[in-house]
């Protein structure tokens, strides 16, 4: 079984926000919720780098470890999903997540949180694949249709890669070899507890 992963090649990311826009449009993510976003460090200074960030679908997902209602589950492709029917919007997962992935709509006065929303790897949720109920709660289920997440598919520079971890690691290894300078796939070691050996 394939092990699905994301890899953002920071040498390639140009902060064009194509991934963000693709995600928003494909999943009808409302204004104010950011399943994916581009973070730029050292903005405007030498060494500036941008990285596209979303849920990394961790090997040992800390969100799931802290969830008081056990709303998280991991698919056979190792995509980390959750049930909005179970979620109580407590925000624990937000504190646990090293990537700031969980998002919450404001649903009431005093900024009270609604049910958590995050990147689904374009793989929907617990409802039947491709059903209107699934789309309403979680957005598109491209994976069930044999397609990869749209953010990666639409990346302008092929910086953001999605797919079987072994294959994208191979693509990235190949790039690093050709570039002739080191690796540094952002977030990879945090999410998957391993580096990419070149």
């Amino acid at each position, binding site marked *: 079984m394939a092990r699905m992963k994301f890899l953002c090649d920071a040498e390639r990311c140009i902060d064009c926000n194509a991934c963000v826009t693709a995600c928003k449009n494909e999943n009808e993510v409302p204004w104010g919720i950011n399943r994916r976003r581009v973070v730029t460090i050292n903005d405007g200074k030498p060494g500036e780098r941008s990285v596209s960030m979303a849920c990394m679908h961790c090997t040992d997902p800390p969100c799931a470890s802290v969830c008081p209602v056990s709303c998280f589950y991991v698919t056979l492709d190792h995509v980390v999903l959750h049930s909005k029917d179970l979620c109580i919007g407590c925000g624990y997962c937000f504190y646990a997540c090293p990537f700031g992935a969980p998002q919450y709509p404001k649903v009431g006065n005093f900024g009270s949180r609604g049910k958590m929303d995050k990147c689904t790897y374009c793989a929907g949720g617990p409802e039947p694949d491709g059903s209107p109920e699934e789309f309403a709660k979680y957005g598109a289920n491209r994976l069930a249709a044999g397609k990869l997440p749209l953010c990666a598919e639409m990346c302008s520079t092929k910086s953001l890669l999605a797919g079987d971890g072994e294959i994208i690691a191979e693509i990235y290894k190949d790039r690093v070899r050709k570039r*002739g300078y080191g690796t540094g796939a952002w977030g990879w070691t945090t999410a998957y507890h391993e580096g990419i050996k070149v």
Partner: protein
Amino acid sequence: MAAFWGTNNADHQARICHSTTVAGVANTWGYGAMTNSYNDIRNAKTIMVMGGNPAEAHPVSLQHILEGKELNRANMIVIDPRMTRTAAHATEYVRVRPGTHIPTVYGMLWHIFKNGWEDKEFIHQRVYGMEDIRKEVEKWPPDEVERVTGLPEAQVKRIAEIFAKEKPSTLIWAMGQTQYTFGTANVRASCILLLATGNVGGFGSGANIFRGHDNVQGATDLGLDVTTLPLYYGLDENAWRHWCRVWEVDYDSMLSRFVDKTFMQTAGIPSTRWFDATLLPKDQVSQPDNMKAMFIMGHGGNTITRMPQAVKGIEALDLLVVCDPYPTTWAVLSERKNGTYLLPAGTSFEMNGTRTASNRSLQWGEQIVKPIFECKNDYDTMYLLARKLGFADQMFKNIKVENGSVSAEDILREINRGGWSTGYCGQSPERLKAHMRNQSKFDLVTLRAPKGDLEVGGDVYGLPWPCWGTPEFKHPGTPVLYNISLPVKEGGGTFRARFGVERDGVSLLSNGSYSRDSEIKDGYPEFTLSVLKRLGWDKDLTAQEMAVIQQVNPANPDAVSWQIDLSGGIQRVAIEHGCIPYGNGKARANAWNLPDPIPVHREVIFTSRPDLVAKYPTLPDARQFRVPNIGFTIQKAAVDKGVVKQFPLILTSGRLVEYEGGGEETRSNKWLAELKQFMFVEINPADAAERGIKESDWVWVTGPEGNAKAKMKALVTERMGKGVAWMPYHFAGWFEGVDQRSKYPKGADPIVLGESVNTLTTYGYDPFTGMQEPKATLCQIRAA
């Protein structure tokens, strides 16, 4: 449409984008377009971006640039006043003062010539007038370059050496070179740098000029332009007669539509000057009356400089028609109440037809959805208008219209029938549709399909022009212009012999350089029937071709050239003999017909360095494009008044990745609007601190002309150097601090509104093209 209406006052977006590129590049080596392609940048060893931020303006191009950088371990040098998203990926970033492109290039050439790094063989064989450049370059030793540009000698020398030695090198540019009063000269300087280092006409090299809109290359090519009929034929009688033959319209009847023959052959009023033509006293506008009516189809009002003047201009018009998917700035900017019409236009997704990309490739686009609501596509709108104006039968004589729906295929066929000058003749709808069907067969880097393929074998994707001869001739298109390593038949070529055969006793034809398999092993002039006869090749023309040539000019068929031979026979025969129809000439380092034949540094009109104006003034006042250009007077007044003391910051402008052009469509898209919700000005932390401005504070920015002011947010960032401020140009809907949302028709207001940078931009026009100067003016910023 303009021709039948009897005016040359028809212009398009590229006036303010690449008009200077087209003029400068075409006057150097023949055609004013990207010489190579985005994909070909993967072959470069040195990639230099001077005056462009493709990471935001052309994001997908970065795929090619960054892969090139990685695969070839290529140098990527970015020269820009702003540490852009593109610069973040550079191997070397060079921060330069806005408006000093020519001194920067001459600074590089100073080192190149001094150290003998130039490509002597290339210059000898293929370049005219490089000696004149050497003389000018001598005026730019390192200390003068540093005084004017701010660049230290070591850095200039380093990039010069890399560019000259680590070849192939390509030079990429966009508005950072073009949008100046000396834009044409800037672009010429870039071409000269490429010529001096032998970096034109090969894979991985060339002038990679990035065009900024879907089909803006096509709009340029098809002569939606005040200076020329379609495909660069110009406006002289020969040009009119050629197109009248193609359109099958009587020349005299066309002539009768114009005021007189002089008007028919005089360039019109460019989009940058329309309000001057409306507002100036009648005696200062060289036409029977002021501009009274405007029909605007898909052009933002906020992308043109001097918006406060435009407001007055809009109010002074008798008739204003806005044909666009959105009402745009035109509709809401002024207090105009009557005589304004909004025509709903469909988008490009709602129509069939070709679009030409930056690299001269044509793509056939299929309609994705039918026009929504009461929208019409552009062809149908024009047909309906032509019908009202009474010339639809003539205008659409060879274009099928069924139930009010115009055939996109027939439009392309008409272009094919007349587009010989630019090689727009071989790209038939059938061939282009075959390319779309077979997209996967074309190589990512060479853009070629395998030779053996039945449908598209050997073709270059989209048949980039020139695609010579008739569609049946099956020319594959030209992936790289002026490339002598290929036979013309396979997309090779030479520099165009466009400027005569000799000047002051010096030959303008190439010196022993020729494209592969050419039967003439030296330079040669452009082909006419008489040239074919002299070579004895006229016998190769078929009887049918000969008959058409006779018809084109019954009085003197010998004078019929490759450009006006409607049979394509002259092109075919020349190419069968390995020769290119337009001749084998030298590129011109000295372009004697331009205001500055040798590029000369000139300060911008509102310069931050008045001390340099005495030595580097702008050109004297003159009349161009039917209106006066008083740049010199304005520059002098600004210097005399010490404007820079009151407005000490340089203001430059550019693009955001989230929005496009005037931004009406993109600011109406909720996903994009969320990403950039406010108009802002980028300012250096030191400049901000001096003014007590913190990140995200509201600020007033004021400009030096007409008490211009604009309110926006501050983005405090080291991306800007001290003394330079930057603004995006996509915003509109606020004017001088006032939100104009209530003036939009209900439901048609974009989600995000903001001040336009062009409320603050100032006077300044390139004498050769009418290009505006939004890339460098002055401003002051204070906390609001």
